[in-house]
């Protein structure tokens, strides 16, 4: 199985006034062609930074990066900025978390959707607008011709997210990064957007990286799952296997924190006690140890490496679930 995107040994640090902030630590990730991979973790676990860095969108003089990113057989990390830019749109594209802020407030929908087509594919203004209308229809925006002439603030959140998807798929990318595409939306709209993404992925034969903090979203929409914690990948497996046979206590805790429908009303919601470790001071042991209910002395003192089960299931734990018991 060939990888469309391969991330090797990625470290992303931010030089801040509080010291070096380690946002992404030694991440290896393979996105197989045609597959959908979920990246799960709580806020601040480095999911978004990892994706943006993988795509080459991370900018700023305070960013320190190392590692290698290979996309479609070419090493992105060795390319110039303009060469990386060539990959955007038709190679990789991204959907952002908040549709309220990710569309330019002062430009019409039509010009925003058609922009990529004109710049990347060299279409004429007229052709690009005609194609934009089709794209809006593809993401099931009613009355597409009229919507082209509107400004983002005249649309609802769900519609804006559809517009963003239309922009992302406009140049038929091979890989779509969806960075929490449904977090800012109502639950009912969430389901529609996920459904739309699933269908588009099949129709356009796209691979997808679906970033979310919701294991429930991952369950029906991905082939593989990478769980991130404190900037590291702590578990990686096929989605089915992960839910059937969790090895990492953090993943288990994430799953337990999803409320279920048969919970008694008034019952306390399950939470993961404590909080993410300070990103400027990662400590010696397992990053999750202070919050882990199975933690032992070894966990607090020695940093676990990724271990692999024979079936390819990766986890970063000294006492994985299933063995410890």
């Amino acid at each position: 199985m060939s990888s469309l995107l391969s991330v090797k040994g990625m470290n992303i640090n931010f030089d801040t006034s509080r010291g070096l902030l380690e946002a992404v630590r030694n991440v290896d990730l393979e996105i197989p062609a045609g597959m959908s991979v979920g990246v799960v973790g709580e806020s601040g676990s480095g999911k978004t930074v990892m994706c943006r860095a993988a795509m080459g969108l991370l900018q700023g003089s305070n960013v320190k990066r190392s590692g290698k990113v290979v996309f479609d057989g070419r090493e992105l990390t060795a390319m110039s900025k303009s060469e990386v830019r060539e990959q955007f749109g038709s190679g990789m594209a991204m959907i952002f978390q908040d549709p309220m802020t990710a569309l330019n407030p002062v430009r019409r929908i039509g010009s925003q959707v058609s922009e990529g087509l004109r710049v990347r594919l060299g279409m004429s203004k007229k052709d690009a607008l005609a194609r934009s209308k089709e794209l809006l229809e593809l993401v099931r925006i009613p009355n597409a011709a009229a919507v082209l002439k509107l400004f983002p603030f005249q649309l609802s959140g769900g519609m804006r997210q559809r517009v963003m998807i239309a922009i992302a798929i406009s140049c038929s990318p091979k890989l779509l990064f969806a960075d929490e595409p449904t977090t800012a939306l109502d639950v009912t709209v969430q389901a529609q957007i996920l459904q739309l993404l699933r269908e588009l992925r099949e129709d356009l034969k796209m691979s997808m990286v679906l970033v979310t903090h919701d294991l429930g979203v991952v369950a029906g929409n991905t082939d593989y799952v990478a769980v991130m914690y404190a900037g590291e990948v702590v578990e990686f497996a096929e989605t089915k296997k992960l839910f059937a046979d969790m090895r990492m206590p953090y993943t288990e805790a994430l799953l337990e924190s999803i409320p279920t429908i048969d919970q008694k009303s008034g019952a306390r919601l399950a939470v993961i006690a404590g909080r993410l470790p300070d990103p400027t001071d990662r400590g010696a042991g397992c990053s999750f140890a202070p919050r882990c209910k199975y933690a032992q002395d070894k966990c607090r003192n020695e940093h676990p490496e990724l271990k692999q089960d024979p079936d390819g299931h990766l986890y970063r734990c000294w006492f994985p679930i299933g063995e410890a018991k």
Partner: protein
Amino acid sequence: MSKISFWLQRVAQLLIVLLLVTFGVSLLLRLIPVDLATILLPVGSEIERDLLRTELGFDKGPIGYYLQWLGDFVQGDMGKIYFSGGTEEVSTHLRNAMPRSLLLMIYTQVTALAIAIPLGVLSAYRVGRRADKITSNILFTLSSIPNFAIALLLIIFIGVKLAWLPTLGYAPLSDGIWEHFQYMIMPVISLSCGLVSTYTRLLRADMIAALREDYVTMAASKGLSDRRILWRHVFRPSSLTLLTSAALSMGALIGGAIVIESIFATYGVGFEVFFAIQGRQYVLLQSTVAVIALFYVFFNLVVDLSCGFVDPRTRDRRVNA
């Protein structure tokens, strides 16, 4: 319908502002604790002064006086300037001074914006880097030198030592473009320095904020060049503060370039104000202030209009309001 009513409302508001300003000035003049007729006609006879009082409405009380002035002003009669040898029409003076000030203002604005916009965009793009630091240091220096000091330096070096440009006077455009501009260059530079600094800093701050927005990352993820992102995606939403500030300084430049107009003997509207105060030409002062207010209000209206063009969100908000 809502749009039309919005504009009607806006124009009505501005008319009220104009009435208040002119009434305020008129009232202030009446509060001067001396007899205005004596000031205007220091050497005339008491009979002549009585005639003047009746003519100008000094005998009618503050409101009556104001209404009479307003009635005349609206019909284009802005009153007279009183000399020992006779009178001159205020409107003649202003007709002469207004184009000078307007052109000076337009050139100053164009120069300031033409320098400030690229500088602001550049320093926001390179924030914290060398280009940004150099720009902000130079601008800080420039903005701390008062414009009359710049004017005097220009006169000494460019006007006197190098003798490249005339130091005093004005020539209308009809005398030829170079003839006209050689009188305008130094006043324009003196007036623009401070503005360039203000404009650049406003634009830089707004652009830095906008560059952090998601839609900029989104634009980058479409594969657009930095140049296109800066100009097409960041500049427009960041230019509202700049636009507002530019509009306000347009109004201020029309009557407020008193010192510069005096130094270079441009004799624009600012100089008329100076002349009116110095020579106690109160009718001239009152009418000139009214004309300045008129321009001020007009430019504000233009900005309101262009804000809606630059940022469609404000357009909608106004319609809803």
